[in-house]
Structures are given as structure tokens and as C-alpha cells.
């Protein structure tokens, strides 16, 4: 057979008739567990409030945190050790030179001379039972802290590797990264690693909920005046007492102590979610509170000694260095709770309050008592002259210092003068509390209704001082706290146990992948909106369910503004966009009514967007405001806006200076030069638009806070108009929907509150109503059985039991009457901004 050389050849390896064998099975490549971070059991471990990701970020990384904790432990040892040493091992007679030391070589007394020998010293300690007791207690405390420290270090180590491996951030760059960046990365890695298995994507709100789970509950409880922190004292009047010790105890009882309402860090115990045996649970809670109160009482001496020592060591040095710091003020713990939004992180709150600090202290300084001023001036004069003489003598010959008590009297006189000076008002200060209060409001975002228009009154000042107290008062309260806390727990909190049980049952929702959270923190307008705060018609909340002071609405705005990436549910989106649009229209559109040539043709997107798209629009916004000032047409919001402009660092921010100055110049001119100056502003800004791309997230958050301030002012303004116009309707509505208002005895309703005789009070500011304390128990007892079977959203039933304890309803009648008379027709209309007189607006600028 001839060999045909063809192109056809047998294919060698391309096919084989599948001889069944191992090598031909389907092969898989394992994905492996790429990182240990997918599917973590306790997500809260990653996101928890105190000790985890957020905290590590706030504490600027692992090393800083570690050092801080170690020093805290050392400090503790030092405080105890040093105190014992001072009390037992120092021969004070030697120090005070009452006893002479027989030195051979020199006549100088040295410090070691004053120390007692070791054996004498230890004998003294051993014989002193109290010292032994304190030592044992603090030893136990210290060991506890040590264990906690070790545990924390382990946790933080995990979190550190989470940062490094999963979030790809090194510890050294952590202090310079904003929380928003960290958060964005967490959202990012969820997509990759699925650390939470319930959903594909984490939202910002989920993360916030995890971090702030318990804080949200506390904010809600303060908002609904559930916690006994306001008291009516015989001499001091209404007083707010809320210290760290008390807060610690509240948290211990509710959240994490043994037998608390929470099973673990993320879920409420099952039995507390059912209404069936609420009375029994309330009893159990009451007895628990009693026991914790008694424990507090027993530990009181120890804590008291500790507090005194701690205060002594931490504050004496400061007071000596700058005695004025005692006269300085700080935001009280209660204030921080009252002013906090739902879902607001610590650093956000602190930066907001710090921005308001200056204005707030100015406001408080407006109210210096003239009597005190006169006295202080004279005391300062006499003390000053004495001091001057002493100092002059000392300068002449320093032997004067060796005279007994000269040094101490110089110190004392100095302190005395500083204290006096804090009572003497600044010569150049102008009394304009209303404007100041408005500026404060722009930063703190919350304020009871009746403050507006009453800023000059002492009552308002007193109430504001509850939020913004003297540092000295703060320290004093902390010192008193160990004594007062058990009393509050045993006598006040225990009575509220039923309400607390009801609160946790009614306001806990289970969110998939997050666990149990406070339902207020969902910021759902429909469930918790207040009709007087722009959620009219959208809210279905009963009065019990409404958050007071527009907390839901303001929190929602705040959250949406600080987290622009967050996608809220549909109705909520609608609310936000509607409000933003309105604010924008008022901010830019108001002048355009008077001047069709206005610069703001920019589409009504969010203010922040406008601020960022280019300085030209920014300039136009400011420009508009100035025009509006000049044209007597300053809307409430514009007023606030200019307040902000004059305050906030934006105006002085270097980037914007150019465009702003152009705007100012334009404002200086009259409307005749409008068009020209407009182009001027634009050209200037177009020149500086290069920086636009380099906006860091820090700048972004800066703008966000400004935007939030504008929104807060706007909402308050709108709320004021609304409540003025519709107060009567609301009260009527409430009484109608709520038969139980009949159950309030008449004497309660008509009882005049001593302070508020001619002082309109709003129902939103929590007040201690003197007598109806007896009512809650009776009212809730009658409805308890009915309430028992009802679940969360059964309106009237729950309302009936709980509306009375909310407090402050009794004044409704009065408020309605008072708000009625001064009601000009046009202010009824929402769209119409209130016309503020030019003088007002200008005097405001003078203030600043």
C-alpha cells in the first residue's frame, strides 16, 4: 500500500475516549478563607460603642490607646499610694518647722528629713484600720481594672489587625483619617468579605446603630423625660442632677449589669419584649434597682473618698495655674444627652458643642447680676491694692517672701481677684441675648420652644444653665454624686420601673443584622415624627410615640447631611429632599422675589452640593444674604445664615476669602450695581476654582455642619410659626384623640407653675410637674391589663397609660391661650418668612 502523504493526520492529544480516572474529575480551586474577617460572630465586637473600631479610631490608634490605658493604671496606683504616703509617712512638724532637725553639716531642712522612717511608717499604716480598708478596696478595684485592661488589649489587638488587614489602614495614618473614611472602608469590605451575613451591603445607619445602640436608648429616655434627672428642690428650684456616677448606674441597670434588661450586647431579653407579665417584670426591675441602690449606699464612703482624692489631684494644679477655670463653663452631662441627636457619634457631638461654646458663654455672661458686679468690682479693687503692695515689696526685697504667710496671701489674693473679675462684665459687651441664643441654636440644634422671644429672661438663662453649667458646679456635683446617686436610685428610679419596662418594650425594634435597637434611632418620621415639626400628615405616631423637640426630624436631617451616601427609605427621602429644597429656596430664592436679577439661577439642589460645585454659587448664596439684609427682607433663615457666616470658619476659610470679599463689596453697593458686582464675584471665584478638586472630607464635614446649622435654624423657625398658628388645633386634637385627658384632675391642669406665671412654657421642655407624680401609677394601673395584651403600635391604649408620666401636659391650656394673642395673619403662612427688622439683623452683626 502506497504511502499517501496527506495533510490529514491523527490528532494526538485533543480527544480521548474518557478513560474513567481520578485525573479527569472536575477540579475545584478552593477560595480559602482569605481573611479571618468574613463572617464574624459578634459584629458588635467590631462595631461596639466603647472598645472597638470607633474607639480605636477616636483614640488615635493602638499605641496611643495602650499608653493611655497603662498611664491610667499607673495613675490609679499613684493616687492611692501618694495619698497613703502623705497621710502616714510625712512628719509635718518638720515641714512646718515646728520641730528642729539636728543636722550636723548644714542648717537646711531637706525634703527627706520630713519623711518618717520606713518601720514607723508601716507601723502607722498597719494600726490604722481605715487606711487598710481603703487600701484593700482600691487594691480590688485596681485588679479589676487590670483584668479589664488585659482583656481590652486583646480586643484592641484584634481590632488593630482588622484595621491593618481588612481595612488596609496602618496605625500611623489612623489619627489623620476621618471617621467617614473609616466608615466608607467598612462599607466597602462588607461587599468583599461579607462580615455581616444577613445582607450584602452594610449601610451607614447599620454601623451607627451598632456603635450607638445604648446611647440612642439613653438619648430617647432623656428625650421622653423618663430618667429621673430633674428635681424640684426647696431652695434651688428646679434642678438637674446627672453625673457620671448616676449615668454609670443607669447603664449598669439597663444594659450590661448582671440581670439587666439586655441579654447580651445586641438583644433585649425575650420576656421584656412581651407585654404579658409587665407588672411582674417591673417588680423585678424595681427590686434590682433597690439592690443596686443599696450596694451604692454601702460603697458610698469608698467612692466618696475616691472622688475627693481624684478631684484633688486632677484639679488643684489647674486651679492654681488658672483660677479662672472654675468660673468657666462646660456643657453638662445632661446637656450632652438632651442636645444629642439620635445616631450622633461622640466626636460629632463634641465638635458641634464646642462650636457653640463661645456663643453660649457669651450668652451666659450677659446675665451677670449687677449687685454682684458692684461688690466684685470693689472687692477686686481692695484685693488688688493689697496685692500690688505685696508684689511691689517683694520686688524691692525678696526677703518679704520669707515672712510668714506672705506667699500664701499673695496666692489667695490672686485667686480672689480672678474670681471677682469673672463677675465683672466686659466693658464692650452689648446685651443682645436673642441673637446670641439664635447663634447658639445654630450649633446645638435643640432648644425648648419657649426660649425663643424670652432669651432675655432669667428663667431662660437658668434653664440654659442646666445645659451649660459652671465647671466648679460640675466638679461639686461629681463629688456629691456618691451620696446622691443611691438616693435617686432608691427613691426616684424605682418608682419608674413600670414605665421603663414599657419603654423598652414599645420602643425596641429588631433590625436584621443589627439586633435590637431603639426604634427612635430608626428616625422614621412615620412612626416617631412630631406633627409640629414638619412631619404633619406624614406621621402616624401617637403622642407617646412622638419624639419631643423635633428630635426625630432634626436627627434625620443631621444624619442625612453627615452621611450623604446614605440611602434612606423612600418616604424619608421625600421628607429630606422636600425640606432641603425648601431651605434652599428660602436661602436663595427670597431675595429673588425683590430682584429678578438675582444671581442664584442655580438649580435647587442641596446647599452642600452648591457649596461644593463651585465657589461662584457659594458667593451667590452669601451675596444673596447680604442683599437681603440690605433690603429689609431677611428671612429667618437668612438671618441665621448670616449668623453662621459671621461665625463659622467658612467665612474666614482661606479658600473662600476672595470670593467672599467680592460678595461683601457687592453687598455694600446698592441694587443699582447689582449686575456688575455679580459678575465680579464670579470672575473672582472662577479664578480660585482650582482648589475644588482637593476638597478633603474634612472640608466636607465642615460644610456639612454649616448646612446642618442652617437646616436646624430653618426647622426651628418653621416650627415656631407652625406652633403659633396651630397650637389651638393641636391641643384640641390631642384632647380629642385621647380620652384619658379627662383623667387628669382639674387641679393639676389649672395649677399654675410658680415659675411660669407670665412665661409661656412649651410642653416639649421636660419639666417636673409638682403634683401629678401620683397619677402615673394609678392611670397605668387601670390600663395595665388592657395594655398587657397589646403590641407595639396600638395607639390609644399605650398612650393612655403613658401620656401622663410624660409630664408637662398640664400646661397645655395655658400655652394655647398665650400663643393665641400675638398672631398676625400673614405669619400663618408657612412659605412666608418672618420679616425681621433691619435693626435687629444689624445689631446682630454688631454683636459679632
Amino acid at each position, binding site marked *: 500500500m502506497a504511502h499517501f502523504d496527506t495533510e490529514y493526520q491523527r490528532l494526538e492529544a485533543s480527544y480521548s475516549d474518557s478513560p474513567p480516572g481520578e485525573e479527569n474529575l472536575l477540579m475545584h*480551586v478552593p477560595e480559602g478563607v482569605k481573611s479571618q474577617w468574613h463572617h464574624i460572630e459578634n459584629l458588635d465586637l467590631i462595631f461596639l460603642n466603647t472598645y472597638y473600631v470607633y474607639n480605636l479610631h477616636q483614640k488615635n490608634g493602638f499605641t496611643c490607646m495602650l499608653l493611655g490605658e497603662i498611664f491610667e493604671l499607673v495613675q490609679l496606683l499613684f493616687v492611692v499610694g501618694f495619698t497613703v504616703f502623705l497621710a502616714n509617712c510625712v512628719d509635718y512638724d518638720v515641714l512646718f518647722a515646728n520641730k528642729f532637725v539636728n543636722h550636723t553639716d548644714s542648717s537646711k531642712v531637706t525634703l527627706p528629713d520630713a519623711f518618717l522612717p520606713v518601720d514607723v511608717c508601716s507601723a502607722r499604716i498597719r494600726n490604722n484600720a481605715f487606711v487598710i480598708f481603703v487600701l484593700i478596696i482600691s487594691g480590688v478595684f485596681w485588679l479589676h481594672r487590670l483584668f479589664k485592661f488585659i482583656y481590652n488589649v486583646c480586643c484592641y489587638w484584634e481590632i488593630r489587625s482588622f484595621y491593618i488587614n481588612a481595612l488596609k489602614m496602618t496605625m500611623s495614618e489612623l489619627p489623620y483619617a476621618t471617621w467617614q473614611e473609616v466608615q466608607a472602608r467598612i462599607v466597602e469590605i462588607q461587599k468583599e468579605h461579607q462580615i455581616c451575613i444577613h445582607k450584602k451591603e452594610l449601610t451607614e445607619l447599620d454601623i451607627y446603630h451598632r456603635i450607638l445602640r445604648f446611647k440612642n436608648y439613653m438619648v430617647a429616655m432623656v428625650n421622653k423625660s423618663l430618667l429621673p434627672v430633674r428635681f424640684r428642690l426647696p431652695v434651688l428650684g428646679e434642678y438637674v442632677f446627672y453625673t457620671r456616677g448616676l449615668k454609670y448606674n443607669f447603664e449598669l441597670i439597663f444594659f450590661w449589669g448582671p440581670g439587666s434588661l439586655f441579654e447580651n450586647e445586641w438583644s433585649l431579653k425575650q420576656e421584656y419584649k412581651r407585654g404579658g407579665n409587665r407588672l411582674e417584670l417591673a417588680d423585678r426591675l424595681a427590686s434590682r434597682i433597690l439592690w443596686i441602690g443599696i450596694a451604692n449606699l454601702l460603697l458610698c464612703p469608698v467612692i466618696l473618698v475616691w472622688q475627693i482624692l481624684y478631684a484633688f489631684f486632677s484639679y488643684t494644679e489647674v486651679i492654681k495655674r488658672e483660677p479662672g477655670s472654675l468660673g468657666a463653663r462646660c456643657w453638662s452631662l445632661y446637656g450632652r444627652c438632651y442636645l444629642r441627636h439620635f445616631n450622633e457619634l461622640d466626636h460629632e457631638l463634641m465638635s458641634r458643642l464646642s462650636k457653640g461654646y463661645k456663643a453660649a458663654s457669651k450668652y451666659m455672661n450677659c446675665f451677670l447680676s449687677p449687685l454682684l458686679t458692684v461688690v466684685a468690682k470693689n472687692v477686686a479693687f481692695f484685693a488688688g491694692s493689697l496685692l500690688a503692695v505685696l508684689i511691689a515689696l517683694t520686688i524691692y526685697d525678696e526677703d518679704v517672701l520669707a515672712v510668714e504667710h506672705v506667699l500664701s496671701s499673695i496666692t489667695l489674693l490672686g485667686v480672689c481677684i480672678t474670681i471677682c473679675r469673672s463677675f465683672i462684665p466686659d466693658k464692650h459687651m452689648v446685651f443682645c441675648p436673642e441673637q446670641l441664643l439664635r447663634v447658639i441654636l445654630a450649633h446645638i440644634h435643640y432648644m425648648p420652644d419657649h426660649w425663643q422671644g424670652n432669651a432675655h429672661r432669667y428663667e431662660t438663662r437658668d434653664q440654659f444653665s442646666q445645659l451649660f453649667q459652671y465647671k466648679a458646679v460640675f466638679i461639686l456635683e461629681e463629688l456629691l454624686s456618691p451620696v446622691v446617686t443611691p438616693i435617686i436610685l432608691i427613691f426616684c428610679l424605682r418608682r419608674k420601673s413600670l414605665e421603663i419596662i414599657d419603654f423598652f418594650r414599645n420602643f425596641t425594634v429588631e433590625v436584621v443584622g443589627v439586633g435590637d435597637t431603639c426604634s427612635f434611632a430608626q428616625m422614621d418620621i412615620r412612626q416617631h415624627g412630631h406633627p409640629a415639626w414638619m412631619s404633619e400628615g406624614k406621621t402616624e405616631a401617637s403622642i407617646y410615640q412622638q419624639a419631643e423637640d423635633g428630635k426625630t426630624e432634626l436627627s434625620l436631617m443631621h444624619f442625612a447631611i453627615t452621611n450623604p451616601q446614605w440611602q434612606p427609605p423612600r418616604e424619608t427621602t421625600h421628607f429630606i429632599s422636600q425640606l432641603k429644597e425648601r431651605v434652599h429656596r428660602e436661602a436663595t430664592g427670597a431675595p429673588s422675589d425683590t430682584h429678578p436679577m438675582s444671581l442664584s439661577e442655580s438649580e435647587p439642589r442641596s446647599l452642600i452640593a452648591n457649596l461644593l460645585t463651585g465657589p461662584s454659587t457659594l458667593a451667590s448664596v452669601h451675596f444673596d444674604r447680604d442683599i437681603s439684609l440690605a433690603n429689609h427682607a431677611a428671612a429667618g433663615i437668612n438671618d441665621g445664615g448670616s449668623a453662621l457666616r459671621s461665625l463659622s470658619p467658612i467665612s474666614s476659610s482661606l479658600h473662600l476669602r476672595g470670593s467672599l470679599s467680592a460678595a461683601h463689596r457687592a453687598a455694600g453697593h446698592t441694587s443699582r450695581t447689582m449686575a456688575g458686582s455679580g459678575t465680579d464675584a464670579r470672575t473672582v471665584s472662577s479664578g480660585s476654582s482650582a482648589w475644588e478638586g482637593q476638597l478633603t472630607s474634612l472640608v466636607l464635614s465642615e460644610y456639612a455642619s454649616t448646612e446642618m446649622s442652617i437646616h436646624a435654624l430653618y426647622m426651628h423657625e418653621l416650627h415656631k410659626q407652625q406652633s403659633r398658628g396651630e397650637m389651638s388645633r393641636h391641643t384640641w386634637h390631642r384632647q380629642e384623640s385621647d380620652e384619658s385627658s379627662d383623667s387628669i384632675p382639674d387641679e393639676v391642669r389649672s395649677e399654675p407653675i410658680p415659675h411660669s406665671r407670665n412665661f409661656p412654657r412649651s410642653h416639649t421642655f421636660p419639666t417636673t410637674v409638682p403634683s401629678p407624680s401620683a397619677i402615673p401609677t394609678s392611670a397605668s394601673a387601670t390600663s395595665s391589663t388592657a395594655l398587657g395584651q397589646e403590641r407595639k403600635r396600638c395607639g390609644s391604649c399605650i398612650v393612655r397609660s403613658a401620656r401622663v408620666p410624660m409630664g408637662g401636659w398640664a400646661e397645655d391650656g395655658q400655652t394655647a391661650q398665650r400663643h393665641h394673642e400675638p398672631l398676625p395673619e400673614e405669619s400663618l403662612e408657612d412659605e412666608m418668612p418672618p420679616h425681621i427688622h433691619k435693626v435687629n439683623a444689624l445689631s446682630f452683626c454688631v454683636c459679632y
Partner: protein
Amino acid sequence: MNCRSEVLEVTVEARQVEEAMLALLHTILLHRSTGKFHYKKEGTYSIGTVGTQDIDCDFIDFTFVRVSSEELDRMIRKAVSEFKDALSNSGSDGMGQISLEFYQKKKSRWPFSDECIPWEVWSIKVNVVNLANEQERQICREKVGEKLGEKVINVVEVINRHEYLPKMPTQSEVDNVFDTTLKDVQPYLYKITYQITDSLGTSVSTTMRRD
């Protein structure tokens, strides 16, 4: 917390408890088992085969499919019969709950023991009824069969949702995800716990679950 949980509820007669539980647990495990992994050199692996087999129930009109692994069946049977005994000893009308929990192990360093992190928990709540006569029993027999059919479809629906499953492990980590002790099949790591609610109806919340 970070764990899915599914609840199934059945109402059966005392003698049907065992079969009903077996049917449901086996159905779930059927979908949560793979063939044995055979790892190769280059970090790849092949998956062995899994046989299935139909099981007819004696007291229920129902047939279910299970993995044909005697070992697995023995283990499930043991757990179920313990549960049944506890249920019948508890009192007249027993209520109980049997939970099948899938978890992952996470190796820890020396002083701590390994962590078991559940990712899915199936709770089957059982309500035992007493029937008076044979006719009712007959009806019950059919009805429970239908119900179980529904539950099986339920289970399949849940499993068909593409939700979180542990990623396929490398050879060194296979013990952290799969139960490799069985010869012929390799289910995800699981454990079965149960709890009995006493006759008063107050739930004994001595939950053995850890999630």
C-alpha cells in the same frame, strides 16, 4: 447575632415525632452536605459523589430523600430519639424544639479554646397532640404528610436563596468548615440541640444555642 435563623413549626402525634424530625433534619442536611473533598497538589480538589436514597415513613404518608450514609443517619437518629424520649417524659402535651445549627470553627491561640461561630440555625418547633380515635389518626397521617411536603419546599426555597455560605476551605482549614469524620459524606459542621417546654406553657429558656 450574626447568623441566619429559620423556624419551622409542625404539629404531630406522639408516634410521628421521630419520623417527622428525621424527615426535616435529613432534608436540611441533604442540602448542606457535599461529597468528600480530595485535595490535589496544586491547591485544587475534587469532590466525591453523594448517594441519595428515598425513605418511606411508617406513620406518615410521606417519603423523603436523604443522603445515603448510614453513619450520618445513625447520628441523627440518636439525637432525635433522645429528643423524643425527653418529650414523652416531659408530661402530657409536650412542646419542644429541636435545633440544627451549622457553624464554623475559628482556631484560637493557646489559652482560649476554639470558637464555634454559627452561621445558620434551623429551629423546628414541635407540638404534640393526642388523638382520640383511629379515624382522626388516619386524617392526621395524611395531613402531616402534606404539611411536611410544604416544609420541605420551604427548606428548599430558603436554601435556594443565595445567601452566605462559608467559603470553600483549603486543605488545612477543611476541618473548620466541614465535618470530615464521616467516610462517605461531608456535611457542614453542625450540631443538634433540643429544648423542652414544660406543660405549664412557660417557656424554659435554657437555650443551648449560642448565637
